[in-house]
């Protein structure tokens, strides 16, 4: 067992446990914090995969922005949520069953796939994945258009979010 | 002028419609304007058809003034118009009676615009039937004529009166004019269902609806149709035609719509109904039944003659049994039109002989004559109805001293209707009897009973209205009966002149008819 394997297993175990905590913790703040942990785990996984840029973005965007956003949201809606009954609905066992089934199904499908045991090839010498990614994102021959579309989507989502969350009753500033 | 001459039939046919459409834009309240406009407009086709008469060559074979306009090309049906001596006579009658009827309608004050427009539409419908040389067009105009008449009866008919309808399902009452108009409409349409089917069959068979083409080919068509022997098909189609026309004529026992429709229709409506619409049926016999089904017509001539004789005899009896003046006159139409069909039946039994030609001459002339005298009679009934608001013969009595001029005109017209020699009805009845006697002696002899009863009911009418002790109710005060006025005399004048002229010197019209009949059969 190589070091990388051990690291991976540890990170994966931590991540899955954190994820489990995310979906089961009663306290939402805790859940959000557990999410942060999960996201860290994923970031490490990215690093293990030599996707350095993704790992960084994961930390910056997910943990820095999204997770914080969740915590804000939890706090904004908190007063009702505090210790009010079960955090899982009555049909949680169906959900669990479905989750297990999904997992089983996915694994089952993967099982017979011959590419399962592929090993990663060595990174080519002098290959810089970050700059290659940058090239790909803004190259007219590659993904500039989806990239720009994604940015427009993001903008639209922001505007939409502002509009949806805006409270007309307290929004005196509009007048 | 040249354009009019080249499209003379089209102009005559659609001028009334055009005028009616123009009327749409005239102010609705101006009754005087509307009346005169409609009257003037109806004079135009009359003048044109007089011109047509002068231009018509009775010796020429086939249709004259033929004109063909595209209409329904997918079916090979075209607006094909034409004129021979038979249609000419009928067109003349129509264009003559329409202005007269419009003049007679000047006393209508209710929704004058609609009334006049309907009348003009009606004229187009009637003319179309007489001019059509295309089966489908014939049928279209045949049905078109119904609609205005329906509304005229339904809307402008006698406002009073309820009709109790008894049937095996129990009885109920409805307004008399509603009953009459419905009966008229549904009966005629029901009758023409078979006609439509038969026309369509011919259309499918020959791929077009041209009357001349179909006439030339149908009578000796001998292939089986749809697995049914051609003689069966022809027999069924023959009766489909006959029933459609028999309802319109009306032949006994399809006649009961007529007294109701006549009685309830407005005066001018009755005039046109009796004067022209009934002729459509007889015209159908002459134009379609005899040429298309010579063999069947010959075979069933006896049956037709039986119905005609029944119409003559029962029509006369029923007329005699009436207490309603208008109904009496209405039944007289059944009686008179019976002679037309008798002549046609006789002719059918021996097409081409001199007897047949004479019978046909009589039948066609009888159509024309009945148009004149029946229109006159209905108008005269209308005149007195307008003044007294009753048609019950028992309510009159001894009116002659109050209305001597009216009385004179009534007697004159009645005598024409009775078939007094020297007036027009006699000529045609004599010709029919003369033509039918050698061919259908028994039926002709029986129909003489109808001729006898004609006298009885005509005299009954005169007796109850004019003669006898004066009914003082009409002599004084607000009910005082007023004499026929100048307009009404003007309505009667052309009819009376024609009645007398044809009675004394029928050759001018009979010559045209005679030649047409010789060529047609």
């Amino acid at each position, binding site marked *: 067992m190589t070091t990388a394997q051990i690291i991976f297993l540890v990170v994966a175990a931590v991540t899955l446990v954190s994820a489990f905590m995310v979906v089961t913790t009663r306290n939402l703040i805790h859940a959000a914090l557990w999410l942060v942990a999960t996201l860290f785990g994923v970031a490490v996984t990215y690093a293990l995969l030599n996707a350095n840029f993704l790992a960084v973005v994961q930390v910056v965007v997910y943990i820095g922005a999204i997770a914080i956003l969740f915590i804000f949201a939890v706090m904004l809606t908190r007063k009702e949520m505090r210790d009010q009954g079960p955090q899982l609905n009555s049909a949680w066992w169906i959900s669990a069953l479905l989750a297990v089934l*999904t997992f089983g*199904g996915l694994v089952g499908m993967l099982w017979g796939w011959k590419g399962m045991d592929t090993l990663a090839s060595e990174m080519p010498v002098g290959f810089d994945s970050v700059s290659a990614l940058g090239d790909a994102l803004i190259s007219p021959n590659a993904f500039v258009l989806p990239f720009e579309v994604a940015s427009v989507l993001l903008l639209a989502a922001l505007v939409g979010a502002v509009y949806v969350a805006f409270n007309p009753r307290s929004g005196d500033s509009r007048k | 002028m040249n354009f009019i001459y080249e499209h003379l039939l089209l102009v005559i046919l659609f001028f009334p419609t055009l005028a009616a459409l123009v009327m749409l834009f005239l102010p609705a309240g101006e009754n005087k304007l509307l009346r005169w406009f409609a009257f003037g407009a109806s004079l135009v086709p009359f003048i044109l058809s007089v011109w047509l008469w002068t231009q018509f060559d009775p010796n020429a074979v086939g249709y004259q003034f033929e004109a063909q306009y595209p209409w329904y090309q997918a079916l090979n049906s075209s607006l094909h118009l034409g004129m021979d001596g038979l249609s000419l006579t009928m067109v003349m009658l129509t264009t003559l009676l329409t202005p007269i009827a419009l003049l007679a309608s000047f006393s209508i004050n209710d929704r004058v615009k609609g009334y006049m427009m309907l009348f003009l539409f009606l004229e187009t419908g009637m003319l179309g039937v007489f001019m059509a040389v295309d089966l489908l067009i014939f049928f279209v105009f045949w049905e078109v004529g119904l609609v205005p008449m329906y509304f005229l009866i339904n809307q402008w008919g006698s406002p009073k009166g309820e009709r109790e309808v008894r*049937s095996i399902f129990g009885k109920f009452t409805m307004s008399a004019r509603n009953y009459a108009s419905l009966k008229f409409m549904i009966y005629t349409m029901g009758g023409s269902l078979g006609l439509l089917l038969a026309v369509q069959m011919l259309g499918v068979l020959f791929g077009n609806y041209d009357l001349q083409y179909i006439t030339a080919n149908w009578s000796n068509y001998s292939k089986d149709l749809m697995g049914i022997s051609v003689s069966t098909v022809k027999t069924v189609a023959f009766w489909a035609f006959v029933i459609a026309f028999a309802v319109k004529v009306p032949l006994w026992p399809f006649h009961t719509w007529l007294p109701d429709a006549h009685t309830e229709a407005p005066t001018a409506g009755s005039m046109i109904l009796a004067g022209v619409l009934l002729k459509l049926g007889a015209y159908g016999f002459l134009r379609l039944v005899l040429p298309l089904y010579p063999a069947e017509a010959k075979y069933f001539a006896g049956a037709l003659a039986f119905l005609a004789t029944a119409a003559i005899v029962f029509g006369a009896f*029923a007329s005699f049994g009436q207490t309603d003046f208008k109904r009496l006159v209405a039944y007289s139409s059944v009686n008179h039109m019976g002679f037309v069909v008798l002549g046609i039946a006789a002719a059918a039994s021996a097409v081409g002989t001199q007897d047949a030609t004479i019978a046909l001459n009589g039948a066609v002339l009888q159509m024309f004559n009945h148009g004149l005298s029946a229109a006159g009679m209905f108008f005269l009934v209308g005149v007195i109805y307008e003044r007294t608001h009753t048609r019950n013969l028992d309510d009159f009595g001894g009116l002659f001293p109050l209305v001597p001029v009216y009385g004179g005109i009534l007697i004159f017209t009645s005598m024409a209707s009775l078939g007094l*020699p020297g007036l027009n009805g006699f000529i045609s009845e004599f010709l029919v009897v003369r033509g039918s006697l050698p061919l259908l002696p028994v039926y002709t002899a029986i129909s003489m009973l109808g001729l006898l009863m004609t006298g009885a009911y005509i*005299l009954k009418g005169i007796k109850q209205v004019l003669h006898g002790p*004066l009914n003082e109710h009409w002599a004084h005060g607000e009910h005082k009966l007023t004499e026929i006025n100048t307009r009404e005399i003007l309505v009667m004048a052309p009819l009376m002149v024609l009645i007398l002229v044809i009675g004394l010197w029928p*050759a001018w019209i*009979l010559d045209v008819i005679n030649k047409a009949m010789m060529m047609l059969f």
Partner: protein
Amino acid sequence: MTTETLIWLIPLPPALAFFLIVLFTNKNKALSHSVGVGAAVLSWLASMVVFFRALGVEHLGEHPFVSSVNWLPTGDTWFKIGVAIDPLGAAVLFFVSITIFMIFLYSVGYHNFGQPKGDHDRAGLPPHGATVTDEQGHKHTVPSVEPMYSRFFAFLGLFAFGMYTLVVSDNLLTMFVGWEIMGLCSYLLIGFWYGKPSARAAAIKAFMTTRIGDVFMLLGIAFLYSATGTLTFREIFTEEMLQHLVSIDPHFLGLTGAGLIGLLLFIGTVGKSAQWPLHVWLPDAMEGPTPVSAMIHAATMVSAGVYAVIRMFPLLSLDHNTMTVVAFIGTFTAIFAATIAVAQNDIKRVLAYSTISQLGFMIAALGIGAYVAAAFHLITHAFFKALLFLGSGSVIHGMEHGVLHTGNHSVDPQDMFNMGGLRKKMPITFWTFLIGGFALSGFPLLTAGFWSKDEILADAWANGHLVVFVTLALAAFMTAFYTMRQITLTFLGEPRTKEAEHAQETPWTMTVPLMVLSVFAIGYGWVGIPENFLNLQLAPSWFHEFVGGTLAEHPEVIPFNPIPLIVSLVVALGGLLLGWLYYRNVNSAKEDFFQIPLLKNKYYFDEAYQVVFIKPVIWLSEVFTYKWLDQGLIDGILHFFGPATGGIGGFIRQYIDLKVINEFIGDGLAAVTQETGRTLRPIQTGRIQQYMMLSLVILAVVGALLYFMLGAGL
């Protein structure tokens, strides 16, 4: 002007007069009668010219005046109408024109021209008299002028037109035209006082009864026309045409074609000439003004019937059976009507039945083949019967004077038992009436009636028709008897009522026609004295020679035989004598032995016809045809269709549309959907997680299915 043109013109003046009066001059009485009488004069003049020109033609029978024009196109040929004057036509024209002229003239006086307007007179009723105040201030009631004076002349004009047309026609059709026009005019004139229900009924009766005959006649004409292709007399009465007619077999009662046609035409005459059994209209026709009665009964209409049969004699004589029928009808009518006449009290009704009886003589004469005798009696009868009618009119007029004078309107001025002694009051009327009456009775040697009646009897005897001979002789006896009864009751003796005392002679316009006609009532007989009368070898009878020339075969002169002469002398004189002897002592109807109910009521023919024909016809019309057949059966069937269609529609709606389509298919589908929806609704919790779960479950199931079912093939 050629004679033919003149013949064409003869009927026109009266027709023009009719139109002129109706259209223009009807307001002016003087102008109207001037037009009317003027037209009669013109026609009379023209007729006279034609008559005398006809006299001048040798063998007029073979070369009559003829002229024709095309009238009706009939296929390739034309039906021609035209005029013709042959000897028979000329002879008839002669008496027709004179009597018409006289009747026109008479009408002026009869309708009180020049008298004031009546106080309460009203169109449609006879004038009731007017009150005038003379210079001394006395009030008198005088006759008033007829309110419809102008109209009367118009009708007379039309009537005359009809008669002239009939006489001058060269064919049956125009003859029929004139015949029917007269029928109309008789209707109008009998119903002239249409305000009286009795007059109205009589008019209709006259028209309808004659129309029965006319209808048969029309059938006969049509038959004849189709059999021969022509209606012109001269073309029909050719040898081959007549043979052709005989050879036709119409399969009817074993008659030949000629026989059937003849019979049909004869039925027309039966109606028109009031022969039994269609005689009923004629007595009732007395409701009309008296000139009308004269016109109808003497000059024109009834004569027309006989004239038609005489015209058709060549055709009729072809079939023995027809001739027998004709002879029987004529003979029977002659005796039958004579018996009724004996019991009538109305002065005009007696004459009416006498007319029927005399017409029976003529018909009987024809039936036994006595062509000339029939024609002769027709003409003499026309003269003396017109005279008698006009005379009776004069009597009535005089009596009306009396009635107006006394003011007692309950007295019937026509009842002979109210008269008596008028001889002194109305001398001209008396003498002329006497002449007429004697002529009717056949007063020997002097009067026209004797010669004509004698000729009929002689013919009957000579041809061996003994039954006819005896019956006619009996009828002649009764004729003389009732004529004398009439004269006695009316003129002789003393006045039986005050009204009769105040009767007055009538004005000249009425008496002049009487005098003129009485001349002919005597003189016309002399033109027909048989050449072998009493075996005296006189000049040949002009009438026999002239009129007999009409026929292709000149009728033979019958040999003289004293028996018919003696018989006719006995019956005429005996009847007159007995009548005078009996009735000079009778002063009221109760004393009259002959007031037998059966005769007085005309053998109850009217009542019988009422029950046998009229009532059933009315029932047939009102109840059977209209109520049962039309309204019941035919409309019943129609009304079956209406509600039946409604019923079918209702059924379809009730049980198919509503139940099957709406409830089962329409509502059913909806219900199923709704129920399914309702059932499935709980799924729609609105809870997004459950939706998702569901979709996942389904995905899982579908995936599993795909996997296990298709997986095998993968």
